[in-house]
């Protein structure tokens, strides 16, 4: 380690550049809304004194402190455009020195809010496509400096890109559809999307706006009164024969089912009408929607993993959905790209294949999770239940007959976890990782190993004694976890995946080719 330290040119703390002074002022003014609460508190706190000057002094002091700390952090902030990376040093007491290699900078964005524009300042963001978006930000520098920074980064990057020898595909052929849904398919999909959400919405609305209604919704006596006015009384209802009552109940149930199906169909048609997925030179292009048409393009090389999902009912007819987990960049709201919401597996695999994700071999056997893993979970649940029951009996003075009802949680969870254990399976081959999980939402997650960012082996206190571990793979835009593995298997899988991952650089896998 020492020989690296000596020949690498370590940056001096005092070199580098400061941000623009006027940025201090812009930051201060735009930050004032955040000071509203302390200011209001100060005004109310000092109002009782009957001396308006004190309030003014208090508010001034708050503003002054804010400015002072901004000045301090400005004094302690340096950025440095180095030969290989951008360095940012910041922090008043705790110092952070961040290094962003040029190879990792995806984009340099310059943002100018109105106030900053007046002073011709700009906020420069170096985007690295990192997970949390807490990338590097320079707020603020002069517009000229911002332009210069962008050019510098571009110059460094273009050298790299040329060296790596990537060229945009010159795909002259225009889009051809990969997957489309006709009206009939959308309608069937709607039937499977049974939903009673309408009642929740209506109930919520009624609760919110009941003051607008000319009658009291929740006043049941009033309702009974109205019914009696029409000649129906409670006695009357009780007098109906059993068969009639069963028929009434069936009618009520049927209308409930009808409403659920209708809601599902309407919602689905609104969203999925005219669904069309095309493969273009830029990537997957998806258009759908009846009233609001959406048109989204996702570059193929951004796909990090594929999720094939189905449910216990729709599976009987072979219906599945395909989603791509992607490196979310522009559209923060959708990191999962629905490529085929309702399709058969025969339709799904070609789409996945276009995104370089392959179906598992049909004859391959997946590894099942160790049952002990779920038993440990169950064992850990019991003391928690016991404490809960004891707490209820002591603090709420509930008799054991009532508090003991909590024990019902145990068999229910046991059943659910047993289902989970039955459905869980994983597999790893030469190129991909497969995890199958869930009994209600049955998912098969497939991730190419080169897209893995980190691998973590974790063990809880009890699982450790049993020699069990989980493997957490860091995937951009999603999660992937193998559970209930023997520790030795976990180590073996990690080593195998790491060999493949470490061989290829990040900037090479997420570039179009």
């Amino acid at each position, binding site marked *: *380690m020492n020989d690296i330290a000596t020949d690498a040119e370590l940056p001096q703390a005092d070199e580098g550049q400061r941000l623009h002074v006027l940025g201090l002022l812009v930051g201060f003014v735009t930050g004032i809304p955040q000071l509203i609460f302390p200011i209001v508190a100060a005004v109310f706190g000092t109002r009782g004194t009957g001396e308006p000057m004190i309030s003014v002094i208090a508010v001034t002091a708050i503003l002054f402190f804010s400015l002072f700390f901004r000045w301090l952090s400005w004094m302690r902030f340096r950025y440095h455009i180095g030969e290989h990376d951008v360095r940012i040093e910041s922090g008043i*007491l705790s110092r952070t020195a961040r290094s962003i*290699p040029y190879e990792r900078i995806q984009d340099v964005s310059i943002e100018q809010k109105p106030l900053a524009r007046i002073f011709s300042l700009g906020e420069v963001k170096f985007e690295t496509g990192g997970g949390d978006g807490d990338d590097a930000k320079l707020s603020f520098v002069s517009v000229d400096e911002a332009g210069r920074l962008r050019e510098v980064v571009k110059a460094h990057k273009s050298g790299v890109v040329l060296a790596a020898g990537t060229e945009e595909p010159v795909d002259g052929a225009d889009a051809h559809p990969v997957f489309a849904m006709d009206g009939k398919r959308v309608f069937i999909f709607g039937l499977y999307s049974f939903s009673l959400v309408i009642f929740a919405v209506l109930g919520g609305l009624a609760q919110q706006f009941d003051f607008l209604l000319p009658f009291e919704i929740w006043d049941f006596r009033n309702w009974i009164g109205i019914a009696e006015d029409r000649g129906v009384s409670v006695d009357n209802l009780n007098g109906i024969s059993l068969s009639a009552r069963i028929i009434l109940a069936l009618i009520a149930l049927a209308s409930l089912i009808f409403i659920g199906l209708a809601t599902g169909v309407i919602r689905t048609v609104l969203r999925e009408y005219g669904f069309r997925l095309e493969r273009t030179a830029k990537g997957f292009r998806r258009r759908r929607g009846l009233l609001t048409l959406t048109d989204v393009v996702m570059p193929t090389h951004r796909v990090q993993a594929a999720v094939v999902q189905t449910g216990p009912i729709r599976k009987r007819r072979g219906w599945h959905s395909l989603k791509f987990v992607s490196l979310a960049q522009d559209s923060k709201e959708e990191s999962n790209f629905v490529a085929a919401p309702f399709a058969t597996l025969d339709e799904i695999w070609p789409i996945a294949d276009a995104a370089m994700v392959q179906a598992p071999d049909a004859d391959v056997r997946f590894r099942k999770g160790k049952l002990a893993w779920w038993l440990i979970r169950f064992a850990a649940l019991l003391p928690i239940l016991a404490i809960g029951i004891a707490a209820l009996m002591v603090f709420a003075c509930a008799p054991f007959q009532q508090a003991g009802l909590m024990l019902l949680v145990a068999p229910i969870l046991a059943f659910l976890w047993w289902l989970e254990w039955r459905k869980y399976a994983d597999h790893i081959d030469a190129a991909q990782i497969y995890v199958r999980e869930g009994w209600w939402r049955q998912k098969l997650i497939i991730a190419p190993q080169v897209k893995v960012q980190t691998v*973590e082996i974790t063990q809880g206190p009890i699982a450790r004694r049993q020699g069990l571990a989980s493997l957490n793979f860091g995937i951009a835009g999603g999660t992937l976890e193998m559970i209930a593995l023997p520790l030795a298997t976990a180590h073996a899988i990690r080593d195998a995946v790491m060999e493949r991952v470490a061989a290829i650089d990040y900037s090479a896998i997420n570039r179009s080719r």
Partner: protein
Amino acid sequence: MTEETVPELTPLNPAWVTTTRIASALGMLPFVIGAGVLEFAQVMPSGSFFVPVLVLYGFVAFVVPARKYRHWGYDMGSDRLRVVRGYMFYSDTVVPFGRIQHIDVDQGPIDRRYGLATLTVHTAGNHNSTVALPGLLHADALAIREAIRAAIRQDVL
């Protein structure tokens, strides 16, 4: 299991125990003061609350950091960084240099007094998007940063 894997790991700098003790002693001081106030006000029988709090304080601030220290370790490979920590909740993370987005070297006021620093690497993954390695000599942290940065550059070229 860990007994086999620990020898190949580099331990943190022993000064980390001291800085962690200081940090947790300072961080938990308000609770001790609060318990002291209760003791002074004689709300509860003398010592019935204060003594347990004091014992717990001593345990968390002085015993726990040394234990944690024994279970931390890292390994700086030629193309990956491995960080191992925890006994009760054991975790063993590997980050290939080829997936690191940017690198932070943090130094708090207590760290600076002892010449230590924390190295944090950021990746694009949702899980473990930041992996932190505390208790490094500042110079070592900078050296690791340079090594990783150099590795990233080499990879791309």
